[in-house]
């Protein structure tokens, strides 16, 4: 392959990403669990509207970092976060910022589908209801239907809105959780290995859904599957032992990584 062409291609992509507005900016983020230094000096930019993937072996800190972005780490006893994370140039660890408000802007989808043991409708309606986003019952129904449509679930569950959400299949449950997250119309959606508990068909549906959602939302996904990262993301960050080893456009990370450790991981030499 022509080295010069490859280089200019890389440069183009990098510049394109840089030109795009930065949604989340992390500067020198450190996380400690008690005495354990779980995340070390992470500095990374997540561009607006698009999918950014965090990859790396188990225990590398990628989920920890993801959970910093909506401050879910606050709920873990003994967890300390230092450094700075900004969303739209506003520090999310600023004491004046309300964590409830933050989580309304930064939705989250978890590894294991975790619908509430309530009806499909109630699952999606819960967020808008507690934030008071809908003024009337009709409006709430509208929000629920729209969210289910966007999550690609509406056609499958339209006759079962009153049935328990826990009665759906695994893939449907995960899409229900995505619908629940987008019902409050967040700006960022964090996905923590959303497909690790799903079969390939359900996984394909979720991945398809992600690419549709990028039109409206910034998505950050943590995944164990490098193929998934390559398929869905525009940018990829590789974490190892709490360090952010390398970050860049997905094509570059997978085809032409700068770091030896990235190369080794991607080619399957460890992890």
């Amino acid at each position, binding site marked *: 392959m022509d080295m010069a062409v490859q280089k200019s291609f890389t440069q183009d992509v990098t510049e394109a990403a840089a030109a795009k507005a930065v949604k989340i900016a992390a500067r020198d983020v450190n996380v400690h669990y008690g005495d354990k230094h779980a995340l070390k000096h992470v500095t990374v930019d997540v561009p607006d509207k698009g999918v950014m993937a965090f990859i790396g072996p188990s225990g590398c800190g990628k989920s920890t970092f993801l959970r910093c972005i909506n401050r*879910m780490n606050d*709920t873990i006893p003994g967890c300390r976060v230092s450094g700075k994370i900004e969303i739209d140039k506003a520090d999310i660890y600023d004491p004046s910022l309300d964590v409830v408000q933050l989580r309304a802007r930064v*939705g989250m989808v978890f590894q294991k589908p975790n619908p509430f*043991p309530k009806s499909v409708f109630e699952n999606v309606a819960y967020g808008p209801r*507690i934030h008071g986003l809908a003024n009337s019952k009709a409006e709430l129904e509208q929000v629920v239907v729209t969210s289910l449509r966007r999550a690609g679930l509406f056609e499958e569950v339209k006759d079962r809105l009153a049935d328990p959400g826990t009665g759906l299949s695994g893939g449907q449950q995960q899409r229900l959780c995505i619908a629940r997250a987008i019902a*409050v119309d967040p700006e960022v959606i964090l996905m923590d290995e959303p497909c690790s508990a799903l079969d390939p068909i359900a996984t394909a549906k979720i991945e398809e859904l992600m690419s549709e959602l990028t039109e409206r939302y910034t998505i950050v996904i943590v995944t164990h599957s490098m193929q998934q990262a390559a398929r869905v993301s525009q940018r990829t960050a590789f974490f190892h032992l709490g360090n952010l080893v390398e970050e860049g456009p997905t094509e570059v990370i997978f085809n032409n990584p700068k770091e030896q450790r990235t190369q080794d991981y991607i080619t399957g030499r460890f992890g």
Partner: protein
Amino acid sequence: MAVTALPTMGPRAKPSTSEIVKSGIRRRYAAERRFRLYGILAVLFGLTFLVILFANIIARGYTSFLQSSFRLEVFLDPAVIDPSGAREENTLLMADYGSLAAEALMKALKLDPKSRPDERAVTGLLSQNADTEIRNYVLRNPSEIGKSVSLWVLAHANADSVMKNAFDRTVPEARRKVSDRQLALLDRAKAEGILQLRFNTGLFTYGASSQPETAGVGVALVGSFFMMMTVLLLAVPLGVMAAVYLQEFAGRNRLTDLIEVNINNLAAVPSIVFGILGLAIFINLFGLPRSASLVGGLVLALMTLPTVIIATRAAIGAVPPSIREAALGVGASKMQAVTHHVLPLAFPGILTGTIIGVAKALGETAPLLMIGMVAFVVEIPTTPLEPATALPVQIYMWATAAERGFVERTSGATIVLLVFLAVMNLIAVILRRRFERRW
């Protein structure tokens, strides 16, 4: 495979894995069968004792639900009740109704009304309460004076024993409580249908009494009910709040560890200690009345509190963390996550723990002895501040009495208590089934 193939060891030096497994398999299955047998024996052992216990209590106690009464045509003689005819309440209260009952029974048995020995014998067959029963009837219906009315009048406890075939007639008359003449009269009354065993409503409505036939668990039932309400109103909200705070909001530090250890210790404190505490604090310090069911309820609430806290914490802890994360993830506040999701899911567990805690409190005797709930209370209390007893205390008090009537009442009250507790446990199971949700 390398090992078995070693030529120096010979073909039979090392048996194959499957041969080794085969040689031991019989022993393994035998051990498994033995283990199952031990389990079955343990269950049977427990069940046998349970059956013996229940059979014993029911066999001794079922007769207490029946009580002998005479059906009498009582002539409400104006000359005896109200000679002046003024219908003054005091006159009506003081009249000699006992003689009316005796007279009616003598007439029913066709005895000579003038015969003194017969009158004595007949009076001994009637309960001392016969007097009160007729008086109450007259006070309710003063217009009936001068007429003959048909009334059921309680028989004496000794007559009741004869009716229930619990009386040894072979004992010499001088050492018997019922004379030969009385026995003959009873047999006749029974044969003529004047004396009958009827359902003993008095068991549930009377309070303490020195006569077995008018002793009941009424006061104890009301006292137990007041105490149960006090426990429910105090221990449940306090316990659930404390548990929710400790489990969901409090940080983990030395102080909360200390609190946790102490709550677990409190659950193991002997109940009599709570009784002493109640005596010292509620009665001596706060000056609440002795023997009051409110004080009993307070003491039992203190005793139940650790149980409720521990059960609630366990139930909350069993709610998967993913549900909390899901709620927090869409922007619910901590309190919303707890009240909207965690508590509803923990509800069946909280309920079961609470009902079992309250049931345990209802069966408690020792602390109630300390605060004076062993009193002889005749009047059924209408407020929790009035003296009362409790079911288990009533059982304890009757168990120390010698008369045959009290012996059967001891078992009868035990049956009532057991039914009460069984019903509560049944409610716990039903509610649990109803509210249980899968996730």
